[in-house]
């Protein structure tokens, strides 16, 4: 089996750190780009992001796990949730011998998650296009909270509050901090880059301008014949589908799923932090924001180990992070509301044409000034 070399620098295992950071970053990147599509470009304040990720994760974990058990012919006595714990090692052992099946199941799960996410997005968009911003924010926040309760309560899906383990679909690529993590990273990178290309193309197309028009002036865009209701609905559905895919991939990576994974802080609030730090309405900015967030987030862990002896016992790094990132967000909102890379104004005509018109206008202006003399 291959092994990734470890390089230790200043007490930090650099390769391990980079792989972990990359994995977190690719997931954050995909999700924050979809939030940017919703909130940054279209002006839908989605405070219920976590709901779509959790929905995709739960359904794909549940279905793919069952499928794997069925295809491998492992007996779970008709009670998948009850027996998966006892047979998980057997399932993983067989799966690691069968990479093709694993990849198929991963792809199937991701596609399935996209479908589930799209349906959830469609349901969420029903009130979304009818309510004002503030009411909508409240409604989405509340729905996400309820969805988490539902995941804990409805045992047949992912086994209730405790959650269930998911078969390890990356088992063929080794284990631990070995090649498996690099394989996962590869999958996530392909996914995140395709999301980036997609949202960037949307943003640069005439559709992107329509989205911004709906965000900036609903009435004017309606007057120009744009169906703002349908536009907002489609954006929510697409963003939800992509988020659900990210949720499914995360579940396959950690090989377990439970309602506790899907808390409001990580998958709604941190995502908003990334979008706002980076610059909402600018995909490159958001990509940078997600990177700086993921880096700071992981660095705080490393720095904490270094300062452990000097910190009082009661300082918990998790709570410290809450306070620090909240303060950072508020400071950015106050002093640099556009983020690191603020949204660029989009010229409505090609640059050359625009220059031509401007030149002509200027010339005309000069002539007008000359005339009275």
């Amino acid at each position, binding site marked *: 089996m291959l092994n990734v070399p470890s390089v230790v620098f200043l007490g930090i295992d650099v390769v391990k750190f980079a792989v972990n950071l990359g994995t977190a970053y690719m997931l954050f990147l995909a999700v924050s780009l979809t939030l940017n599509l919703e909130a940054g470009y279209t002006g839908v304040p989605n405070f219920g992001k976590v709901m779509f990720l959790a929905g995709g994760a739960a359904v794909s974990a549940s279905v793919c796990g069952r499928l794997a058990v069925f295809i491998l012919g492992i007996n779970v006595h008709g009670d998948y949730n009850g027996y998966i714990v006892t047979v998980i090692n057997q399932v993983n052992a067989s799966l690691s011998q069968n990479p093709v099946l694993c990849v198929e199941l991963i792809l199937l799960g991701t596609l399935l998650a996209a479908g589930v996410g799209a349906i959830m997005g469609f349901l969420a968009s029903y*009130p979304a296009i009818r309510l004002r911003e503030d009411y909508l924010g409240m409604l989405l926040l509340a729905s996400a909270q309820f969805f988490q309760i539902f995941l804990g309560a409805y045992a047949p899906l992912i086994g209730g509050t405790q959650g269930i383990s998911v078969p390890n679909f990356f088992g063929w690529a080794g284990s631990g901090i070995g090649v498996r993590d690099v394989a996962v990273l590869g999958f996530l990178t392909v996914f995140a880059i395709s999301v980036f290309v997609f949202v960037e193309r949307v943003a640069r197309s005439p559709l992107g301008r329509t989205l911004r028009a709906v965000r900036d002036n609903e009435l004017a865009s309606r007057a120009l014949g744009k169906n703002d209701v349908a536009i907002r609905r489609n954006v929510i559905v697409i963003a939800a589908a992509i988020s659900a895919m990210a949720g499914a991939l995360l579940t396959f990576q950690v090989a377990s799923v439970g309602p506790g994974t899907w808390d409001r802080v990580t998958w709604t609030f941190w995502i908003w932090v990334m979008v706002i730090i980076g610059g909402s309405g600018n995909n490159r900015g958001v990509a940078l924001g997600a990177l700086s967030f993921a880096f700071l987030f992981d660095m705080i862990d490393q720095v904490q180990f270094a300062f452990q002896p000097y910190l009082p016992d*009661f300082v918990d790094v998790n709570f410290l992070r809450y306070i620090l990132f909240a303060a950072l967000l508020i400071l950015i909102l106050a002093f640099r509301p556009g983020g690191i890379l603020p949204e660029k104004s989009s010229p409505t005509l090609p640059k050359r044409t625009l220059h031509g018109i401007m030149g002509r206008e200027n010339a005309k202006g000069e002539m007008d000034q000359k005339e009275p003399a």
Partner: protein
Amino acid sequence: MVEFTYVVSSIIFGSLFGMMAIGLTLTYITTKVPNFAYGSFVTVGLYTSYSLYRFEAITPYLSAPIAFGIGGLTSILMYLGILRPLARRGSPLVSLMIATLAIDIAFVGIFGTYANYLRYTYVFIDSLNFTEILGDFSIFGSQGLILAAPLTLALITIGLYLLLTRTKFGVAMRASVENPSLARVLGIDVEKVYVFAWFLAGGLAAMSGSYYTLYSQGGIATGSGLIVEIFAASVLGGLSSLYGAAIGGVIIGAGENLLTGGGISVFGNGVLDYQKGIPLVLMILTLLVFPQGLASLPWIRVVTRIRRISGRLLGGIRRLSARGLRRC
């Protein structure tokens, strides 16, 4: 049909959510921002009462006024320190909403650090997640909160009514909410009014948090978890009316517990898991069917109709009695 414990919890939670919804509505009508950090002010009350009980064995009834003060001051700090400067810089509504969400997260971090401090320094092992404080007085064979909580809500509602209708400051408050620029022209210090409203709001949340410790377990994220119910209550009340919020809180708190209790006796214990969904469903229905809440329903028409009918009845009785008197 419904077990008695659910009747008790519906009375207590109905009253507490009434108080919280009044506060949330106060912050909403003054700044027009949905305050997602509001739940954390309930946690301020929880921890004030918890600490005072553990250190000095002070009952939450006595620490409630202290909690009111601390909650109110924290709320003013949040308004003057963060929301107002942001609003003055011209932040859009979504930025203000995300700022309140950030404040909520920061609060959880602060409470967590404080609870850890108590745990490591004073060895309070339950500081991150404590059970209800025993030592409430008992009445009608159940705890005293069943009387104290509704009484407090009633007193607060009557007090607010008197303040808003019978005092000059109250009239100024209403004016500043209805039309700030016109109120400013009339020489009302609108900012002072807003600061007072935020003080009241934070105080009410913290006070209900203190009461909460007598009935239910609490922890660093308890208040944040209640935010859905508080918003549901406020939305049901119309997000603009304080009395509507009080009624909305009672409906949400009582409805959640009574429906759960009733559901358990019909469908079994599985219903318990979905308890928190009830306020959410009520909120969604309100938003979709009558988004302006209870306040928007044609109450005036209802009231005038009742008055007309009762007037006719009274008139008839009076005429009859007069005739009877003449005959005597």
